[in-house]
């Protein structure tokens, strides 16, 4: 009986000390962590909307969408965060869109776990710069190298066709959802 009490007491004491210590540290760290996250998101939003100065998080089901305003508080478009499957795992992109959703301002890959040196080329500028001023109607498309792209087409990276294709597909997917929202007047 005595040892049992001893056992429980020890565990409780260790647990309490640990809990106290951790709650202290987490009180210090949590705001920092939240800030880091916030900062990252903010950076991305403005990265794809270079003219943007402020933004508003729209409450839309199923998509993470921000309305972006310029210095004079005039809405200049949207920033859409969306994700889907790439070659190895999830790819998460942020797309800046014109207000009528018919044009991409610019595109940024936020997260990906593609093969370094191959699929990771989708984060490099010669690929993602293709998305600047890309027309999104009827939908994006991709072509192989050596083919002249139309105004809604990007050239896939040789050796990483799958990742390139995936980015296009992810954006198309997100656009479909956005258009539905737009029709429902929810934007």
């Amino acid at each position, binding site marked *: 009986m005595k040892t049992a009490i001893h056992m429980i007491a020890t565990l409780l004491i260790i647990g309490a000390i*640990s809990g106290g210590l*951790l709650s202290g540290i987490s009180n210090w760290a949590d705001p920092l962590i939240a800030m880091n996250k916030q900062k*990252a998101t903010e950076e991305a939003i403005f990265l794809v909307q270079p003219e943007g100065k402020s933004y508003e998080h729209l409450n839309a089901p199923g998509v993470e969408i921000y309305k972006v305003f310029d210095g004079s508080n005039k809405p200049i478009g949207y920033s859409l965060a969306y994700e889907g499957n790439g070659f190895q795992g999830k790819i998460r992109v942020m797309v800046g869109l014109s207000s009528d959703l018919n044009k991409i301002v610019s595109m940024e890959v936020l997260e990906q776990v593609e093969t370094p*040196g191959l699929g990771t080329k989708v984060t490099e500028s010669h690929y993602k710069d293709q998305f600047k001023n890309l027309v999104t109607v009827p939908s994006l498309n991709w072509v192989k190298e050596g083919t002249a792209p139309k105004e809604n087409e990007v050239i896939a990276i040789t050796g990483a066709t799958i990742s390139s294709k995936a980015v296009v597909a992810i954006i198309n997917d997100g656009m479909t959802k956005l258009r539905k929202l737009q029709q429902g007047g929810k934007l």
Partner: protein
Amino acid sequence: MKKQVTLWQDYFKGIWEINPAFKQILGTCPTLAVTATVENGIAMALATTFVLTFSSFIISLMRKLIPSQVRIASYIVVIATFVTIVDLVMKAQFPELSKSLGPFIPLIVVNCIILGRAEAFASKNGPLRSVLDALGNGTGFLIALVALSAIRELFGSRSVLGLQILPDTFEPMIVMILPAGAFITYGLLLGFSNTLAERKKRIAQEELVRKYKPVQKAGSEEIISQEA
């Protein structure tokens, strides 16, 4: 004087004699997972050393107070506490690094090196020796991770610690930073270090044979050929 020797011994044995990655083959998962770049490898080894040292210290202090039935549970709580501290600090101060190490920081909790040293050493020895032991093992782990990640980064990305070493004409071998490259590089390193150790042992043995049987030359040769 004698005490001095054992204290050094406590530290140094972790570097080679009982090197966690090469001799005990513990902590394999982080060894493989985070060694794609030297930077990650060092960060992981330091985080592990931090947790290892502090928990060894605390556990050694408390070793007489904890009833043996709840020993492991208490150790785990102590270790988990330090791991959480590292995790939170990294997330708050080094968000990039924390992201690239992924879930392997929380997983330090189950890294068998830590529980292994707690059980095998800290629970039986005083705080000073425990800390030295922990630091030694941590250094050994660091050396192993640096060796492994240097090879992988060099061939996989042409660079070491982000500095390009190999010329542009060298096409980076992507496989080296993939899981397959990790397994194979670690396996080869381990194999060669075993072979080396074995040869050393054999040579020492031959030396002994030669010393004690100087007359029977033929006999000593026979032993050698049997070994080989």
